[in-house]
């Protein structure tokens, strides 16, 4: 988690793009919930996305997740991601119904921003930093 005066950010590190997106989901859930749901979800959603670069893919991914949680009341807990050519992804999400009391709702996310956004490959791993407007 990063300190930003007005908002919340996080940094994630992973060996592959797929893992990076999974970690980003974990980061998002930690921002939104005090006690994020765990285990296997009973519902399923599929998401397909593509982007011109890795940074945009990360922002689009997070905004997709924000929409699922806040717009549809579906909280993804498990994800399988396939990243194809040209930065296109297909994800199968398993999740649970949003329960604000149970998971300790910490407030809404307005959107993932391009501000200070960074995805770099360093020492064989991908490092990403993203700031969310809350």
């Amino acid at each position, binding site marked *: 988690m990063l300190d930003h005066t007005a*908002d919340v950010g996080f940094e994630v590190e992973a060996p592959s793009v797929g893992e990076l997106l999974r970690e980003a989901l974990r980061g998002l859930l930690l921002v939104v919930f005090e006690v994020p749901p765990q285990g296997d979800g009973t519902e399923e959603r599929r998401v397909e996305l593509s982007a011109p670069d890795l940074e945009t893919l990360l922002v689009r991914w997070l905004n997709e997740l924000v929409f699922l949680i*806040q*717009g549809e009341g579906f909280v993804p807990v498990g994800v399988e991601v396939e990243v194809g050519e040209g930065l296109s992804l297909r994800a199968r999400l398993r999740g649970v119904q949003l*329960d604000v009391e149970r998971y300790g709702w910490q407030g809404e996310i*307005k959107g993932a921003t*391009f*501000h*200070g956004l960074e995805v770099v490959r360093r020492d064989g791993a991908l490092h990403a930093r993203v700031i969310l407007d809350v």
Partner: protein
Amino acid sequence: MGTIDFERLSEYRYRIPRQGKMRCDAVFYASERILEDLAAEDYASLRQLMGVATLPGVVEPALSMPDIHWGYGFPIGGVAAFDPEEGGVVSPGGVGFDINCGVRLLVSEITREELEERKARLADELFRSVPSGVGRGRKDFRIGRPDLERLLVEGPSWLVERGYGEPEDLEGIESRGRLAGADPDAVSERAYQRGRPQLGTLGSGNHFLEVQYVDEVYDEEAARAYGLHPGQVTVLIHSGSRGLGHQVCTDYVECFLQVAPKYGIELVDRQLAAAPVESPEGRDYLGAMSAAANFAFANRQLIAHFTREAFARAGFGGRPLRVLYDLAHNNAKLEEHGGREVLVHRKGATRAFGPGNPELPERYRRAGQPVLVPGDMGRYSFVLAGTEGSMRETFGSSAHGAGRKMSRRRAKKAARGRNLIREMERMGILVRAAGRATVDEEMSEAYKDAAEVVEVTDGAGIGKKVARLRPRIVVKG
């Protein structure tokens, strides 16, 4: 990153001369203490202001208000005007994610003593009546898609026609709650989906509903014009365009990032993504932004209606809550300044038109536009008036609030082991909140002292102090 070059122009006014890729000077307002805050964040927000000055068609100078703090793209507290005839741009990052987020002040003739007698009951009624948002919308208010499209064009007048408020409410809303050019077709399906269940909800974060009383009047004449006097109970509603506006910003930042190169716009920060006002993309965004703005005005209208219901249920039936003013602090509007029509972006800054402006309701025309500066939930908020100085120097703009100085994480850490709700109760302030996290994050200490911001605003002549309001009940999303 080290210091930046700026010079002092007068007691509270500073200039960053044009340098690097800047197309004009930047001017900011600060006291010694605010300067220290800026230095402590390594001038990150002033660097953002310098970034704003690099955008095409910017009209001199790019500005920031005394409540400046780090945002994305534009700093929060940023004001910039762009001339469409000079290739001037519109930037969603110059408006913010929460389009037309703003404040509405309701005034009553209820006294502080009367309030104290029923305070707990009123706090409970307000918390029950005004939903915060996700999973907590009012079951008795639903809006269908065709009606929502109409509301995006008509704003709160659509609600007033259906009994959610009084016709005179509209008089007290900036632009009468209806920005021209709203285009429901420029709003994405996803924005409709996010926004539809959220009309009439407060939201989380720094949004709140506060019952207060007037504890000090600084300018008798303006206070009289606004109908304010000591001991009187007021209600301040701080909310915005909810998921609908957030999604419009998300959609158009992405769109503008793609088209900016086509228009030769070089971006020093991707969140500054922009397109010419006079371009298909620029016009679409302005249409969607105006629609989201009308949604935000309507949202505050519905919350005001729920507030009136709560007051009636708490035993204040028949005691009117009049709209003193409703104004936004996140929008972009075409206005005339210096004899030309420019698009003024105010991001975390508020419109502050001076005396005589024909945009203002007749009753405020002599005093100038009411400017509402909410503070943190523990100390005080202020009512100011727009001035000739704000018209001359800041494209008719002023500060919008206290401004954060502590990250949410640091605030939570500072709140550990404390019971802020009880601490506030001991100060005579009742807090009703959806969760403890928001209360901790929004603690008073996390914010700059609004009095400091107001002193600079008043001292620099870009707003005039009228009255101070003290909180008694705080409802948080």
